[in-house]
C-alpha cells in the first residue's frame, strides 16, 4: 500500500513536470519494465566474465604464432568488429538457432535461449575487442624480457601465463574497461530477439504510450549508473594491480 502511494506520488510529481510515467501504475507494463532492470543487470553480470575469459583465450591464440590457432581467431575478430552486432545477433538467433533446433530434432529440444544468444554474440564481440587490446599489451612486452624467461627454461605457455599476460593485462586495462563500458551498452541489442532487458521493456511500453522521452531519461540514468560502477571497479583494479616504477 505504502509502495502504491509512493508510485502514485512519483507519477503525479513527474506529471506536473510534463513527464508521463503513468504506466507504472498499471500491472503488465510496470511488471515487464521492472523485470527489464533485473534482466539487464543479470545480462551484464554474465556477459562481462564471458567476454574477459574468451578475450584472454583469443589473445593467446592471436599471439601464439601458430597459423591454425591465429587465423580463425583473426578471421572472427575482423568479422565481428566490422559487422553490426545487431545483425549478428538476429542472424544467430533466427538462422543459427533454427539450424541447431533442426539438428536436435525440434525447437523443444533446443536448450539455447535468446538470452544465451545475447550473451554469446555480445560476449564474443567484446571478447574480440579485449583480445586486440591484450594482444597490443602482449606484443609490447619487451622481447628481451621474453628471452630472459626463455633463458631460464620457461616454455612458451609458461611465458604467456606468468610474464606476458600479467603485464599485458595491466597495460591494456584502460582499454578493457572501455570495452566493458561498450559491452554494457551493447546488451541493449538483446531487444531485437525479445530478451526482456530494459530497452526491450521500454520499447514495449513506448510503442503503446508514446512516452519515449520519459523512458529515454531513465535509460540514460540507468546505463550511466551501471557504467559508473564498471569504471569505478576498473580503476580500483588498476590501482590494486599497479606496480611501483612502471607507468603501466
Amino acid at each position, binding site marked *: 500500500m505504502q509502495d502504491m502511494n509512493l508510485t502514485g506520488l512519483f507519477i503525479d510529481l513527474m506529471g506536473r513536470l510534463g513527464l508521463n510515467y503513468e504506466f507504472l501504475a498499471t500491472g503488465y507494463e510496470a511488471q515487464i519494465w521492472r523485470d527489464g532492470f533485473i534482466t539487464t543487470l543479470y545480462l551484464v553480470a554474465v556477459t562481462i566474465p564471458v567476454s574477459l575469459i574468451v578475450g584472454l583465450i583469443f589473445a593467446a591464440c592471436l599471439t601464439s*604464432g601458430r597459423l591454425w590457432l591465429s587465423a580463425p581467431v583473426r578471421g572472427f575478430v575482423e568479422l565481428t568488429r566490422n559487422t553490426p552486432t545487431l545483425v549478428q545477433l538476429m542472424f544467430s538467433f533466427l538462422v543459427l538457432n533454427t539450424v541447431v533446433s533442426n539438428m536436435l530434432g525440434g525447437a523443444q529440444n533446443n536448450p539455447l535461449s535468446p538470452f544465451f544468444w545475447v550473451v554469446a554474440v555480445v560476449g564474443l564481440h567484446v571478447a574480440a575487442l579485449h583480445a586486440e*587490446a591484450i594482444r597490443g599489451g602482449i606484443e609490447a612486452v619487451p622481447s628481451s624480457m621474453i628471452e630472459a624467461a626463455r633463458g631460464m627454461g620457461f616454455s612458451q605457455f609458461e611465458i604467456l601465463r606468468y610474464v606476458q599476460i600479467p603485464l599485458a593485462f595491466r597495460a591494456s586495462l584502460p582499454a578493457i574497461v572501455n570495452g566493458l*563500458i561498450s559491452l554494457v551498452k551493447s546488451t541493449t541489442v538483446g531487444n531485437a530477439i525479445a530478451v526482456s532487458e530494459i530497452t526491450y521493456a521500454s520499447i514495449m511500453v513506448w510503442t503503446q504510450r508514446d512516452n519515449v522521452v520519459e523512458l*529515454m531519461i531513465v535509460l540514460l540514468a540507468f546505463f550511466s549508473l551501471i557504467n559508473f560502477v564498471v569504471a569505478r571497479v576498473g580503476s580500483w583494479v588498476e590501482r590494486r594491480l599497479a606496480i611501483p616504477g612502471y607507468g603501466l
Partner: protein
Amino acid sequence: MSMAVTPKTTSTSSRVLRYIGFVAMPLIVIVWSLIDLSLGRELVEWIPYLASGFSMNILITICAVTLGTTAGVTLGLMQLAPFWFVRLPAQIYVQIFRNAPALVLIFATTYIFPFEIVLFGNYLPFPDWVKAVIGLAILSSAYIAEITRGAVLSIPTTQWEATKGLGFSRLQALRYVILPQCVRRSLPPWMNVASSMAMGTSLASLVGVHELMHAATDASTAVRRLDFTIIAYVVVMAAFFTLCYPIARLTRRLEQRFNAG
C-alpha cells in the same frame, strides 16, 4: 627465434584472411541467388533501394567520425589542461556521454534540434542525417577524448623535457612533437571507435533517416519471403564489412608505417 617467425606467420595469415574477408560474404549472396533464381531476381530488384540506404550510412559515418575526432582530440587535450575551469567541463562531458547508449543520444537529437529552421522567413529543413551525425559525433568525441588523453599521457616525460630544453612552449610541444607521436598509439583504439560509429549509423532510422538496416527491413516486409529476410541480413553484413574492413586494414598499415619510422 620465435620472434623472427611470428611476424611472418601473421602476415601470411592476414593475407589469406584479407581475401577471404572480402570474398566470402558476397560469394554466399551470389551463389545463393544463383541457386534460387527467383530469390536472386528479387534481390537484384531491391539492390538500388538498399544501396541508397547504405549511402546514408557512409555519409553519416564519415561526417560523425571526422567531427567526433576533431572534437574528441580537443576535449582530450582540455582534460589535460592545467586550469580546472578548462579541465572540469571536459571531464564531465566525457563521463556523461561515454556512458550513454547511442540509442539514447541519437534519439535526444530529435528532441533537441528542430526539423526545420526559419531563416529570413524561409523554411530551411534541418536534415535528419545531420541529427544522426551529431548524436554519433557526441558519443565518439567522448571516446576519442579518452583515447587522446591516454595517448598523450603515454608519451615519455623525457620527450616533454627535450622540447622544454629546446625552448618550445607547451602548445608548440603538443603541436609539433607530442600529438604526432600520439597518432600511432591511438590508431588501434580509434579504429574501434570508427567501426562502432559505422555500426551505430544503423540507429539513424530513429531520427527518420533512410539507412541500410531500415531499408533491409522495408525490403523484407515488402517481399515477405523468409529466405529473402535472411539473405538481406547477409547483404547488410557484407555491406558493413566492406565499409569497415578497408579502414581497419588501412589503420594497421599506418600502424606498421609508423612502427618503421
